[in-house]
């Protein structure tokens, strides 16, 4: 039997809402798939859009950016910038033919442990459907 493809999703979470939301999911012992690996940043506004490209290059099958809901940003407006930047990035990736299921963004507040679980499940499911990312992965350089 073919082994089930386990996608590898790199996620960038803002410290104040989404990371806290993911922590809450933990304290509430909500169970979800282990395929999402989190990089903590202070604000979703910190996430350099080129990180997405880089993550795909470096072997991620999917990328997730998560921040506070609009209006709730700990830094007032960081998530508004993020929203604009990643709105563009989403379009760009889609346009060059990268499966749109690979790139996701979410708003998860500190109280939304369950939503975090749902986001993870959805993102992992989508990445599974999309399959291993090979389009412009930095391949193990063959000479």
């Amino acid at each position: 039997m073919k082994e089930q493809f386990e996608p590898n999703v790199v996620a960038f979470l803002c410290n104040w809402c989404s990371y806290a939301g993911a922590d809450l999911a933990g304290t509430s012992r909500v169970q979800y798939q282990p395929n999402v690996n989190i990089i903590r940043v202070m604000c979703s506004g910190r996430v350099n859009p080129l990180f997405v490209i880089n993550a795909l290059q470096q072997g991620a099958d999917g990328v997730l950016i998560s921040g506070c809901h609009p209006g709730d940003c700990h830094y007032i407006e960081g998530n508004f910038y993020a929203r604009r930047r990643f709105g563009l990035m989403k379009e760009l990736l889609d346009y060059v033919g990268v499966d749109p299921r690979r790139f996701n963004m979410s708003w998860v507040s500190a109280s939304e442990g369950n939503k975090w679980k749902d986001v993870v499940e959805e993102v992992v499911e989508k990445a599974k459907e999309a399959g291993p990312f090979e389009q412009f992965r930095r391949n193990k350089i063959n000479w």
Partner: protein
Amino acid sequence: MVDLEKLKSIAKETVSRDDVKYLIGWRQGTYGFRVSPHFVEKPEEAEELIFSPLCTNNLASYLVLPEKLPLPRGVEPDSRKVALMVKGCDSRAVVQQIVEQGIKRDEIIVIGCPCEGVIDLEKVEERFPNQLESVTAQWSNGKIIFHLPEGNEEIPKEEVLATKCLTCRYPNPVLSDLMLGDEVETWGDEKYEDVKELEAKDPQERWSFWEEAFSSCVRCYSCRNVCPMCYCEDCILDRLNPTWINRSNNASENTAFHLARAFHLAGRCIECGECERVCPAGIPLTKLNRKLSKVVQENYEYIPGIDPESKPFQSSYRPEDQEDFIL
């Protein structure tokens, strides 16, 4: 139609001013249909200036290109103004450079050249192959007249114009200190048909299209160097620490490079098409940039390079920006 004599006299007058370093315009190139940027420092050099359908180069790049060489102690930097000839599209580059503080409005003198569209060199060279002797050209009622050694050739504009010109919305400079000649009538309407065409294809096709395009890139970075908006002091493409893009030429790095550059130009690219024009590998770069221009225009109602007072696109937001893609 630009009156060449007027152009020359304005240019002479301009470069005679004490506070002007030089004037950047165009002159006939060394052969065929080629045209070269022309730096006029002395009045007599103005004689060579031209403005014609051959003047494709966007000279705004030269406002930000000169290296700032170390000055010995006590030597003052040359703060004289630079005069610049601009077509409609070029003027948008100037505006955007002002928005991004790459230049200051009072450091430049902008000589606006209402433009009826410039040629696509490839199309013209295909039509008149192996043309060694220099050729001049002019606009005339929707046609371009080429003055070839063997006689004049009139060709309908649509057949030889650069693609960007076919949909040009700003043939008249949006910013200028003085205008050469009368404004021309606007003909273009930007519907981003080329982008839509590609959008309509399925993802696999889109990827094959870009994969092939990106793979053929030789990473000469000409597209970046010519771009009037790409003038970072230390471009991430050149950076080693951290390394964003490896130097090696392969599908991965090339794609990352193109996506990164396209992204950096989102909301800044003024669609002059220079990147695509210069690319020796013939990569349809504007198709990439224009996708983001389309998104920026349609989803965010922003058009760069129009209003010198506007805020940089990626450094601003509207509370109502789209977010239907967010989970």
